[in-house]
């Protein structure tokens, strides 16, 4: 619950500060800003509800994990 309250305060503070400025901008600026806020919202859900949904670390672990582990195992001394 406390996590949710903290996040609501953070989102409110950011939006109150940024939205008046965003009105001056259009197109790409609003698009990138919205994209970042959607990513943050997705992460917020994972954070608040302690979910195990994928994010960047999951993707990169899947892509580089095997090769990186093989490299390290090759260089490790038993």
């Amino acid at each position, binding site marked *: 619950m406390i*996590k949710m309250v*903290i996040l609501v305060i*953070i*989102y409110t503070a*950011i939006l109150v*500060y*940024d939205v008046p*400025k*965003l009105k*001056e*901008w259009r197109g*790409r*600026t609003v*698009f*990138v*800003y919205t994209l*970042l*806020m959607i*990513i*943050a919202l997705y*992460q*917020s859900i*994972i*954070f608040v509800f*302690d979910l195990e949904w994928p*994010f*960047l*670390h999951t993707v*990169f*672990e899947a892509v*580089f*994990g095997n*090769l*990186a*582990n093989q*490299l*390290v195992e090759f*260089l*490790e*001394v038993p």
Partner: protein
Amino acid sequence: MKDQQQLSASELCSLFFIFITGSNILSIPSQLIGFAQNGAWLSVLLSLVGGVGLLAGVLFLYQKFPQMNLIEYSRQLVGKWITMILAVPFIFIQLNSTSGIILDVGVFMTTAMMRETPIYVFNLLTFVVVALTVRSGIEKISRMFTILMLTVILFIMVVVILASANYQPEYLVPVLPDGFKPVLLGTYFYFGVPITELILFAMLLPYVRSKENQLLKKGMFLALFVNHIFIAIVTISTIMIFGPVAGEMPFSMFAVARTIEIYEVIQRVELLMGYSLIITNYLKGVISLYILNITIIYLFNIKDNRILIFPLALVCFLFSMLLISLGQAWRINYVTVIEPLWKAVSYVLPLLILIVAAVLRKNRESY
């Protein structure tokens, strides 16, 4: 979008030194010793060779395009769409690094000082300060940071000197008890994690006044050498105190400082290391978030270069919470095993592609 801020060569070199030395001087030695054992200092020296190569590459491109940052000359060399493709992992790894740097503050506070306080309190407060500092601009950041970093270097040197009473030089030998492989493993980690990040400075070089280019090159190489010397000193100091178990201590310099007790007068100096750890992570976090912000700003041609700072800080804060939610053991494996390879692909590969493209273009023009 075009920024009017300017830096002197010495200010940028100072920022460069702070960025590559920053938190690494306190957090890297133990992990490095864990991999390379007594040969850890050899890994540092080997990484220097790679670091010099990368820096030479960054400066070669800067010489070709002195008024442009990495994103801008990438567009000129390989086109808009390839730049976009190369920028995706480049941005993702920056997100990951910025989150990890500030997460270290939280991990340190909750393991060494305030164990009952939730880690998000430290991470959140640090990110608020970091975001506000980034908003103040690169000129102010560079002027403020030099003094803070000098205090950190001073405190670290004080600890290294005071701890010398407990040094046991015999711990330094044998240098290669298990052959050269552990040294290569240490190099994989040390070169992969902090040294490849120097490529990010290709985003800040255009801020330097054009008259000071020669001074800039010398200064950056000097900063790289001094960084490696400091890391090697701290690593050797840690080995001489703890010997083979040094690799198992998460914040080794903090542990080194704890051993200092001279005539019951000089003791509890680990507070200096606590201060240094928080400050260095803050400094590095600010530079990291600043570069992440301008990378996105230039990639999407956004006019207002401050509008994304708060959302980016929020994304990084939440990412740091996701990283720690999987446990510190998972994270150490992630940072030491996966990140070096990920950083090589995300930072070094684009740099190599751009260098090849610049050389090919030069050859084409000369015919």
